[in-house]
C-alpha cells in the first residue's frame, strides 16, 4: 500500500498529483499488479482532501488501463509500467552533466540554464500534457 503526499504550492491539480504518484510507484516497482490502492475514505482521512478528487484520479488510472475498481473490494493495480532502464538513465545523466558544464563554461548562470531547459522541455512535451 502506498501513501500519497500533497504539494499545494506546485500548481498541479490534486488529482494529477495522485495519478503521477501512482505512475512513479509503478516505475519504481513499489506497486505491482494485484496491489490495492488506498480507498477514497483512507486517502480523505490522511490528506483531508475531497473524495471526488481521489475517485477522479482512480478513474483516470482506470482509463489508462493501469487499475481496475472491483465493487466492494477496492481499486487494484492490473498492469506494471516498464521500469526505466538504469543504463539509459545513466547515459542521459552523463550527457546532461556534460551539457551543463559546457553551458557554465560559456558563461550561463543557473537561471539562464533553467529558462533554456523549460523552453526546450515545453516544446518537446507540451502536446502530451493534460
Amino acid at each position, binding site marked *: 500500500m502506498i501513501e500519497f503526499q*500533497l504539494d*499545494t*504550492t*506546485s*500548481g*498541479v*491539480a*490534486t*488529482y*494529477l498529483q495522485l495519478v503521477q504518484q501512482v505512475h512513479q510507484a509503478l516505475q519504481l516497482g513499489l506497486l505491482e499488479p494485484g496491489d490495492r490502492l488506498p480507498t*477514497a*475514505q483512507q486517502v*480523505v*482521512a490522511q*490528506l*483531508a*482532501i*475531497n*473524495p*471526488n*478528487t481521489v475517485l*477522479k484520479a482512480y478513474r483516470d488510472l482506470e482509463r489508462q488501463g493501469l487499475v481496475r475498481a472491483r465493487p466492494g473490494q477496492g481499486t487494484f493495480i492490473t498492469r506494471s509500467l516498464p521500469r526505466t532502464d538504469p543504463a539509459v538513465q545513466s547515459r542521459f545523466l552523463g550527457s546532461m552533466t556534460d551539457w551543463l558544464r559546457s553551458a557554465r563554461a560559456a558563461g550561463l548562470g543557473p537561471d539562464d540554464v533553467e*529558462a533554456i531547459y*523549460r*523552453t526546450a522541455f*515545453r*516544446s518537446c512535451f*507540451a*502536446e502530451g*500534457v*493534460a
Partner: protein
Amino acid sequence: MSFVIEARGLGKQYGRRWALRDCTLALPAGRVVGLVGPNGAGKTTLLHLTVGLLAPTSGSIRVLGTPPAEGPEQLGRVGFVAQDTPVYARLSVAQHLRMGAWLNPSWDRQIAESRIEKLDLDPRQRAGTLSGGQRAQLALTLAIAKRPECLILDEPVASLDPLARREFLRSLMEVVAAQGMSVVLSSHLIADLERVCDYLVVLAGSRVQVAGEVSELLASHHRLSGARRDASSLPASQEVIEESHTDKQSTFLVRTSDPVHDPAWTVRPVTLDDLVIAYMSRPAACERAHQPQLKVMS
C-alpha cells in the same frame, strides 16, 4: 447533468447598494464547491438567498430544482451551517441532538450519536463552554444528521485555529465520502479550501468573477513573462486576467485552452492562490481603468 444551485441574473439590493448583482451560476451536483471572495463580496448574501433566508431583488434561484425553502420537504433536503457555526450556549450537547431529532423528520440518530462519540464530546457539557473547534463540529453534526442532499456552510473555519480547521475539513470530507452529498462552502481564504473543493466560484465586487472545475481552471491559466509588450499583441485566444509591466519586462496571467508555444515567453503554471487573487483584484483594476487619470503636480 443535474445542478445543486441554478441562479439566473440573481441580485440583492440593500437601499441603493447591490450586495450581489447579475449572478448567473449552475453548480453541478455531487461536488464540493468553494465560494471564495474578500469580505463584503456578497458570499453570505448568495448563501442566504440559497437557503431562503433572503428573497432576491432581481433574477431567480433554484436549489435542487425547486425555489429555496419552498416547503418542509425542500427544507429537509438542504443543510445549512451559518457563519461562526452558531449553537445554543445554554443547551447541552445532548439537548442539541434531541432538538435536532424533534425538528427534523429525516433525523439519523445513529449518525449524530456516533459522531459525538468519535469527537469525544461530553453529551452533558453545555455548548457555551465548548472550544471553537468543538462548537463547529457540533454545528456540523446537527446539519449532517438530518441527511441533507446539499450542505451549505458559511465561513465554517474562519474563526478556528489551524489544527481545528484541518480537523473540521477532514471530518467534513469523511462525511462527503460516506454520504456523497453536494457541499457549498465559503471562505475569504483560498488556503482553507484548496485541498477540499473541486469546483470554485470567485466572488468580488458583488459579482461572480470566475466559476469552474478546479482542475480545468489550473490547466487553462498560465503566467507568461518576457520582454515588455502590450496586452493587445497577445493572440485573441489568450484572455488577459492580470498584467504587470516594468520598463523592460511584462508579466501576464492568461486564460487559454491552447498550449502556449511562443518561445519569447517563460511560461509558469499558476497556483490556485495566484488565480483567485488575480480574479479578486479584477473589479478594482477595472474601476481604476475607468477613472480619469490624475496628473501629479509638483
